[in-house]
């Protein structure tokens, strides 16, 4: 296994897309130390900022407060990154496979436009999780993002496929312009959830403030939820049994588009 430890957090962000199994796995220790990392506009060496132990491997551990280290795992297709600490923007952007685990918090743009693989954040995440980058027609189109803490605005914006589950609460515009896929919000969200959604499913275990363009369709117990909770459990994200039981109120929307998305809100007994 390769271990890379941040010596000291920088104030200016580091751009470190070299920290990806695809780049690191085939390299030896010295080549890894020489990989380019940008501090602001200066192209420098990885070992200017990190201590490197071991040779390249499919399994990588990154240690330290990496809040200002961006683009880790960008475009990765395989392997495993474990971050012991916090992590910076664009974690796992465009990834197509492999897995990323973070013990601490992540910032904005986790899993931007990813199409496969999985990301599991132990702490909180920022905004634009699984999102489309500005102007793009689609966000995340596959894979899984799990967050144990809370998350920011525009979660899963223009998401096409894939699964996002968040244990803590989430801010405005979760599922904005969603086109497909599933979002599970265990602690609900602030405002404008599912705004302008076309298709896809948002499941909330807490009450939601809905836009006036969502209409109550029916109440039922969704069978697929049991399958999803089993699946999430295998990924290390447990969902209490009682929320898979009981009634969900189903709302359809967003009539403004007009969309055929669904919001399922749990009705505790």
């Amino acid at each position: 296994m390769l271990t890379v430890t941040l010596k000291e957090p920088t104030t200016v962000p580091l751009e470190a897309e070299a920290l990806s199994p695809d780049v690191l796995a085939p390299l030896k220790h010295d080549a890894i130390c020489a990989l380019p990392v940008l501090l602001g506009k200066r192209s420098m060496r990885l070992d200017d900022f990190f201590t490197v132990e071991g040779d390249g491997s499919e399994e990588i551990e990154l240690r330290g407060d990496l809040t200002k280290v961006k683009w880790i795992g960008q475009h990765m297709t395989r392997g495993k990154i474990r971050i012991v600490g916090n992590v910076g923007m664009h974690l796992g952007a465009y990834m197509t496979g492999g897995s990323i685990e973070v013990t601490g918090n992540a910032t904005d743009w986790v899993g931007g436009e990813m199409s496969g693989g999985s990301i599991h954040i132990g702490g909180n995440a920022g905004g634009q999780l699984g999102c489309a980058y500005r102007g793009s027609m689609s966000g995340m189109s596959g894979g899984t993002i799990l967050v144990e803490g809370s998350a920011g605005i525009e979660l899963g914006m223009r998401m096409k496929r894939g699964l996002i589950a968040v244990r803590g609460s989430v801010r405005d515009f979760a599922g904005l312009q969603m086109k497909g896929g599933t979002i599970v919000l265990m602690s609900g969200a602030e405002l404008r959830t599912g705004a302008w959604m076309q298709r896809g499913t948002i499941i909330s275990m807490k009450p939601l403030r809905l836009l006036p363009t969502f209409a109550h369709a029916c109440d039922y117990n969704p069978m697929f939820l049991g399958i999803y909770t089993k699946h999430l459990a295998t990924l290390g994200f447990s969902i209490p049994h009682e929320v898979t039981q009981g009634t969900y109120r189903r709302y359809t929307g967003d009539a403004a588009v007009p969309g055929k998305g669904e919001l399922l809100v749990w009705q505790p007994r």
Partner: protein
Amino acid sequence: MIRIRNGKVYDPANGVNGVIRDVCIADGKIVAEVDVAARTLDATGMFVFPGGVDVHTHIGGAALNFARGLIPEQHRKATPIFHSQYRRAGIIGTTPTTFATGYVYAGMGWTTANEAAVPVLSAKHTHEELHDTPIIDKTCCVLMANNEIVLDLLENDEQDRAKQVVAWYVWAAKAYGIKAVNPGGVAGWKWGKDCKGLSDVIPGYKKVTPAKMISSLAQIADELNLPHPVHIHCNNLGAPGNASTTIETMKILEGRRAHLAHLQYHAYGGDDWFTMRSAAVEIAEHFNANTNLTCDAGAVLFGNTVTVTADGPWQHLLYQLTGRKWGNLDVENETGCGVVPYVYKEKNVVNAVQWAVGLELLLLITDPWRICLTTDHPNGATFWRYPEIVQLLMNADFRKEQLKQFPDSTLSRMVLPELTREYTLSEIAIITSAGPARTLGLTQKGHLGIGADADIAIYNESNDVAQMFAHPRYVIKSGEVVVEEGELRKSGEGRQFAVKPEYDESIEDFLRPLFQQHYTMSFENYPVSCDRVHNLEVHACKYCGK
């Protein structure tokens, strides 16, 4: 001083067709001889061409800038230009930044470009962008066919006054020529309508028709002796069956010079999207017979691009067809623009026909002097893909290979499979340089005779024509080597050419109160002052004839 030694020279304007000879340059011009102190470029095994001249492209101004803002997701994926000693940073892609535009044109050996559509109201913006477009020389054409002051005058049969007004506008914009886009249609779009029939009354008016506007502008361009004829984007662009509108337009223009823009988009048969087919044979036949006309191809290539045009109603339709992004900006009293990102796909029957039609026109129109190579950049394809079209024109077998991908139901809509003509290098030099220079009336461009501007592209002789034309060995602009083995060397700023047609100064007394009423800018602020046009060179209004 430079001597280009021993290259195979293609200078069709002077009857030179692949002759091995030296070309000498001094003080930015072609000269007969230079002394031994001159730098020598050894062009053995290379072709020497006059620099490319793009007669119809959209490289700067409000409409293109509007398009840039609409597609950040395309720019993210586009090739960047990294800041270096000789280069400003930028992005290429489908709507290159201004600096990138100059570098990429020069990098291909193209040295002059005509910005085809400028609204007078934002002409200052266009000139600012052209100022920041390095290396190449530039001209621009000002939009007139939906100008409300001109429409009102034609409605009242005030031909002569209309001429004075148009002349005033051309100089106010510091333009080189007159552009007509969908005459009457864009005026109709101000009310959400279009104007597809040339004899239909334009919405908002009682008498004036597109036919009247077309013939009037053609007459005005001739009477003003503009070096470049009226430049026309015909009505009914893009619609199945629009070939009839194009032919009708040609009839209206009989006896007058005119340049038909991106003719590909105006050469369709069929009645609807299901029966749409190529009408290139018919169009080429009429075009070949009407020797007063020139045109440019407006060819389409498969791939991603963005459509930018003053044809607002067409773009609204395209938006409804594609359901994706759309931008529209109407300009008071003058024109408008519409922007729709678009992908031309091989599997789309309509796109396949469009791809074929551009090539068919280039192959069926017999006189290469009268058709110029363009893609209506960025509408049909981005300009840096011109070498792909050159390859398709020069190599019939390559064309055949491309045609194999289409099912019979598509092939039955086009005549391209039957065409065996192959362009020679000399003909390529004509459609990319000598012809457009002549059409624009730029007598010092497009040829390598004594006194011509020293704008030269030197290519390594190769069988891979697309590669060859995409990567010149040397490019010389105004006598300076700007590109050497793919590396940008110098970056001068290029010149801008404009014309000052004769007009009666008293027309300003007529215009001033109208401006006060209908515009929102004071009359004095409206014209572009000369000092705002960088390296301005005013050319004489002297149509030289054939």
